[in-house]
């Protein structure tokens, strides 16, 4: 009997030991990862440190785009101490968005009640879901958060959500761009400065891992590791907030007055190439960009190409003067009538011809035949070289994401008619930033400078200057002075003289370009533009105004020119520039 017992024990003990070993193997090897993560979730806490996106500031340090905190309201159901009905009833009136401002009286009350009822039903749905943690409402304001906290409802909590805010709402929208989500749901800048400097602005999130006690407080002698977050860097731009505001205001008024479908204005500082203001309409509000058509997102000032028309003439004339092909008093001997090239006929805009007209008069009268004469004297290869030197056919390098190159074909591909039409700005496609940068070369005494918007990047402790400082001489001083005098004469004696402010010395040129549509030019639709700088002898600004399809008059002298002059009047006053006489 004893022997049997001993044998049984001899069998049972190894068997039990084997079972224990097998069970330990299961927990410690097979289920090790699962148990480790369960355990660490109980005594370790990982907090993600969000990186704040850098701000974008105007030249006076005012915020153009900043980062604000909104709140996500969530419910942790195991801790709720009120019924879902009670919670939805008390929280819904606080988080319901107000009805549209257009509603009033009984409509307003009814709309408000309907909205609150919908929110109540939404909260109930969320609270009745299986999950123990449910998100209730995104993007609550600080006031809404504090109102809910005052209710003392256990189980409701808030997470911080970083959002972009724009104190000037839609001002500079296309230049700033906006912040959306990428395919991973992370914030990303699109278009304009937000897109161009996205990596600088977005920063780097960090995290803290530490052991917690049963109450959720950190154990100071426990494990601890920290990876600091790095906030995004701030951009200080060259945008003058006051000028930008006024430019947008006057452009908006101009679009209404001249019934144009869109418009663009660029104001540039001649010596440095700094962009002082850049505005386009129609635009959008970057805070709610998703409510606007996607075609409004691109910045027309750098992304739209157009045939410049007569505002291109000063560039061609400056090239011919600089090359010594003509003088201001050189007389045109082919300007007595239309010029025939193959099957094409080149005439003047008003069918008036001036035999033996001088080059200065060519600019004053915006005479296409005189421009053909100057181009023939210059030669197409030299003309192409000058235009390439003015920066046409390639990006200016302005720090905006959506810049395009325009089009400047090789001179080998130019036929005689091409060189002739380019002389007065047809058959060539430019962006507004290219034309203002090229004209600015004249304002800057013949030196081309790269346009830019961001002057410094800073991370709070270090400020890095990133102004490009790229320049090259394109025209000699003598040719620059001559073309400036011609542009002054164009304003004093040309078709836009009525719009010029008294006693102001302005160099400029109007341009009324027909719009190419399916291989021909539309007879009705025009792009009216005006480009120039002031004061002519020592320019404080160079500016382009471009209006698409103005309805009140197709002519730039009656639309773009007066708008340019009203902007110039403001700028001269703003910069305290006294009248010349």
């Amino acid at each position: 009997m004893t022997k049997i017992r001993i044998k049984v024990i001899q069998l049972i003990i190894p068997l039990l030991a084997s079972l224990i070993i097998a069970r330990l193997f299961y927990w410690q090897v097979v289920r090790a990862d699962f148990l480790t993560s369960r355990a660490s979730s109980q005594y370790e806490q990982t907090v993600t440190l969000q990186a704040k996106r850098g701000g974008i500031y105007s030249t006076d340090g005012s915020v153009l785009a900043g980062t604000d905190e909104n709140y996500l309201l969530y419910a942790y159901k195991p801790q709720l101490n009120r019924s879902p009905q009670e919670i939805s009833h008390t929280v819904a009136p606080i988080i319901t968005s107000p009805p549209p401002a257009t509603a009033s009286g009984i409509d307003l009350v009814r709309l408000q009640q309907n909205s609150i009822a919908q929110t109540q039903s939404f909260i109930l749905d969320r609270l009745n879901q299986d999950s123990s943690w449910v998100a209730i409402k995104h993007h609550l304001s600080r006031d809404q958060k504090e109102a809910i906290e005052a209710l003392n409802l256990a189980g409701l909590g808030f997470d911080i959500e970083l959002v972009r805010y724009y104190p000037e709402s839609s001002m500079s929208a296309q230049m700033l761009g906006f912040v959306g989500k990428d395919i991973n749901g992370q914030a990303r800048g699109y278009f304009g400065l937000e897109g161009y400097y996205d990596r600088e602005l977005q920063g780097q999130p960090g995290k803290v891992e530490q052991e917690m006690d049963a109450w959720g407080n950190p154990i100071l002698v426990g494990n601890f590791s920290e990876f600091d977050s790095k906030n995004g860097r701030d951009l200080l731009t060259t945008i003058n907030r006051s000028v930008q505001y006024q430019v947008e205001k006057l452009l908006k008024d101009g679009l209404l007055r001249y019934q144009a479908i869109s418009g663009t204005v660029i104001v540039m500082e001649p010596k440095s190439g700094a962009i002082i203001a850049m505005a386009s309409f129609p635009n959008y509000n970057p805070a709610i960009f998703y409510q606007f058509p996607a075609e409004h997102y691109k910045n027309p000032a750098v992304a739209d190409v157009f045939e410049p028309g007569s505002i291109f003439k000063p560039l061609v004339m400056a090239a011919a003067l600089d090359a010594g092909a003509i003088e201001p008093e050189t007389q045109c001997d082919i300007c007595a009538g239309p010029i025939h090239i193959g099957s094409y006929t080149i005439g003047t805009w008003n069918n008036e011809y001036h035999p033996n007209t001088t080059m200065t008069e060519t600019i004053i009268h915006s005479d296409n035949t005189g421009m053909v004469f100057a181009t023939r004297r210059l030669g197409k290869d030299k003309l192409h070289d000058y235009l390439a030197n003015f920066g046409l056919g390639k990006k200016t390098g302005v720090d905006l994401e959506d810049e395009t190159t325009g089009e400047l074909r090789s001179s080998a591909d130019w036929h005689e008619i091409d060189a002739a039409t380019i002389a007065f700005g047809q058959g060539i496609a430019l962006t507004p930033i290219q034309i203002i940068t090229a004209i600015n070369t004249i304002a800057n005494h013949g030196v081309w400078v790269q346009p830019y918007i961001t002057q410094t990047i800073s991370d709070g402790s270090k400020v890095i200057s990133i102004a490009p400082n790229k320049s090259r001489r394109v025209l000699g001083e003598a040719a620059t002075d001559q073309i400036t005098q011609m542009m002054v004469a164009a304003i004093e004696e040309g078709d836009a003289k009525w719009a010029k402010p008294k006693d102001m010395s302005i160099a400029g040129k109007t341009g009324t370009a027909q719009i190419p549509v399916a291989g021909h030019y539309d007879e009705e639709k025009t792009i009216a533009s005006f480009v120039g700088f002031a004061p002519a002898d020592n320019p404080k600004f160079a500016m382009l105004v471009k209006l698409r399809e103005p309805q009140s008059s197709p002519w730039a002298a009656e639309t773009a020119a007066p708008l340019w002059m009203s902007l110039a009047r403001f700028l001269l006053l703003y910069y305290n520039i006294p009248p010349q006489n």
Partner: protein
Amino acid sequence: MNRIIIHHKLAAACKLVTVIVLFLAGVNLVVSNQLSTQGQDLAATNQQTLLLEQDITFLRQQIATASSLAFLDETAQGLGFIEITHPLALSPAESVAFAARE
């Protein structure tokens, strides 16, 4: 004789090590005891820091909104201010001495 001296030295060293270990254990006990109760203070401080940072962000946003040109323009119009449309430029007067000489 030498073995006795070595034996005494070893005994003294052991006593010293024991005293040091006991002292450090005591320090560890006291420090751990103190730190274990300060986690709550740290959590409260972190929470306070977070709230102050939220306040700073909120106030910055409020300042930016209140000083925006759109807001100022609207307020100025509400107060009855109007834009200058015809500014008057005053030229400096000719000096009396210069005028008299001519």
